């Protein structure tokens, strides 16, 4: 279980949904709030949202799967995002991603089998003037190089 999240609890989820359902077009707002609380959005939440918003399950499921951010399973304890967009590419991000993959023994876009770390690509963090960029558990890192990356990789495996 990733750090800082509550265990899934359908009553707590129902509270969150009830609190937010009056927003105009509330589906994304609710999905975000659930993911913020639990670290992911379990399958069980979909019919609950559908019922509260008077939508079909298929509609809510369709929204949930459209967006890259929403997780159907918990992420690793640490989430390391490496920017893989053009400005970071120009500053050597591809080699850094390969280095991270080999150190962690996993591929970009996966959660490691032991559940310790998720390694994910992100397409621009808006830090393109201090590229390459990364984000570890929500913390931003610019001017990434092999040395700084290695330190992050140690942190990400704790």
């Amino acid at each position: 279980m990733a750090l800082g999240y509550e265990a899934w609890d359908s009553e707590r989820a129902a509270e969150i949904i009830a609190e937010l359902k009056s927003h105009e077009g509330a589906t994304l707002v609710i999905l975000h709030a659930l993911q913020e609380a639990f670290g992911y959005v379990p399958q069980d939440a979909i019919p609950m949202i559908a019922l509260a918003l008077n939508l079909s399950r298929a509609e809510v499921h369709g929204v949930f799967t459209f967006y890259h951010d929403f997780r159907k399973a918990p992420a690793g304890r640490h989430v390391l995002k490496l920017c893989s967009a053009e400005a970071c590419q120009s500053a050597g991000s591809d080699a850094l991603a390969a280095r991270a993959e080999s150190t962690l023994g996993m591929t970009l876009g996966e959660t490691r089998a032991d559940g310790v770390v998720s390694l994910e690509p992100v397409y621009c963090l808006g830090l393109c003037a201090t590229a390459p960029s990364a984000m570890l558990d929500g913390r931003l890192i610019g001017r990434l190089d092999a040395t700084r990356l290695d330190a992050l990789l140690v942190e990400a495996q704790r």
Partner: protein
Amino acid sequence: MKLKIFIPRDAGAIAVGADEVALELELCARKRGVSLEVVRTGSRGLYWLEPMLEVSTGAGRIAFGPLTPGDVGSVLDAIAADGPHPLRLGLTEQIPWLKRQTRLTFARCGVIDPRSVEDYRVHGGYEGLERALALTSEAIIDDVIKSGLRGRGGAGFPTGIKWRTVAQANAVQKYICCNADEGDSGTFADRMVMEGDPYMVIEGMTIAGIAVGATRGYIYIRSEYPHAVEAINAAIAGARRAGYLGPGIGRSRHDFDIEVRVGAGAYICGEETAMLESIEGKRGVVRAKPPLPAHKGLFGQPTVINNVLSFAAIPFILAGGAQAYADCGMGRSRGTKPIQLGGNIKHGGLFEVAFGITLGELVDDIGGGTASGRPVRAVQVGGPLGAYFPRELFDTPFDYEAFAARSGLVGHGGVVVFDDTVDMAKQARFAMQFCAIESCGKCTPCRIGSQRGVETIDKIINGDRASQNIALLEDLCQTMKLGSLCALGGFVPYPVLSALKHFPEDFGLAPPRLQAAE
């Protein structure tokens, strides 16, 4: 004596250690018995000098940077002694890189406290709104038209004309939507403004609301920008407390309020109709036009959609600056363009300047060439759908029409520099791959074509019937250009074809004539 010190809270500065510098500053000051007032500002946009610290003096602010926490003690000593320091940059306003700019939109960014509506007002904030409240809807829109402002999100559509359409529409509820999805690689100006001068965006949206008769606004911010979300939310709360949002804004008869919506990692939601779908809580699938959002937008109601920088330009224009704004620029591109220099560049950051500056001046002169010290080989302008330019086209001036004439895109003003180690076939492949990942799936040329594009480029890279496959790729690009509903599928051929045209040797072909002729 109390020292007044400014350190950015901008995400770009934080990413390179601004928080650590701020923490160390408090510690060092306590040790030395110096009393401090620290203001966390936006960034000045000179990112190679971040983290930068400024101290207020009788002569103006003096800057130091780039700092590590280890430098802070000696910087404090130098400030106390008014002495030299190797990282002392002199008066901030006199730093040539900043002095050369024409900062209209970014005048306050890095200067004021973004959490303080008072500081905003002291620096000219809400003058535009005060004046707008005394004008008729038509007079406000006339000012926007007179300024020549064209949308800063990419397409360059005249902002005033869009507002007029919504003003003339008949509806009980109209909406103002601010597009803060800023998904283009190489761009960060929206983020900087939201973090460094958030009240300006809110003021711009409020003026739009008054002009067109809308009472509700949304800011759609991408989830990759948590600092911007926090800054805008704080400013919305501050504006409500000060009576600048909510019922009867500025003691007038106008109501206006704003809500933030956070994206969820889909590039296509920067396209305006996909953004509307997303705010409505749906999949971010592009809508066919017509109807235009100005007629049937959010929840089917007339809606103004503008980019962050378009709204950000409004307060200056309404505060009597319409003519001054129009006086900058070239041709039909009026005003200033906040250009973002990024990637492998020595002096990267935010450079706001009148339209007309050439790509070469930006890359070589202002940007100082590559960070790696190797020769510049290619520059991508306008994000992932923008063309790659070789050095031979560095005389292209920043102007919507001039870029279009060279099959390029000004877009949101991102300039990404690559050195001579770049493999342009790989870049072309990435453009197609990005399109495949981010396609909303509505049209076949984009959804399937981009996948075929990746495969075809792979074949070319592997030398598999290269000339046939290049012909196939060109054909595919043509199909995507003509058969795509929006500019994701429609424009991705630009980076691909520009790479092929200007850098054919990377695809295993003979070098281009352009270079051979030199």
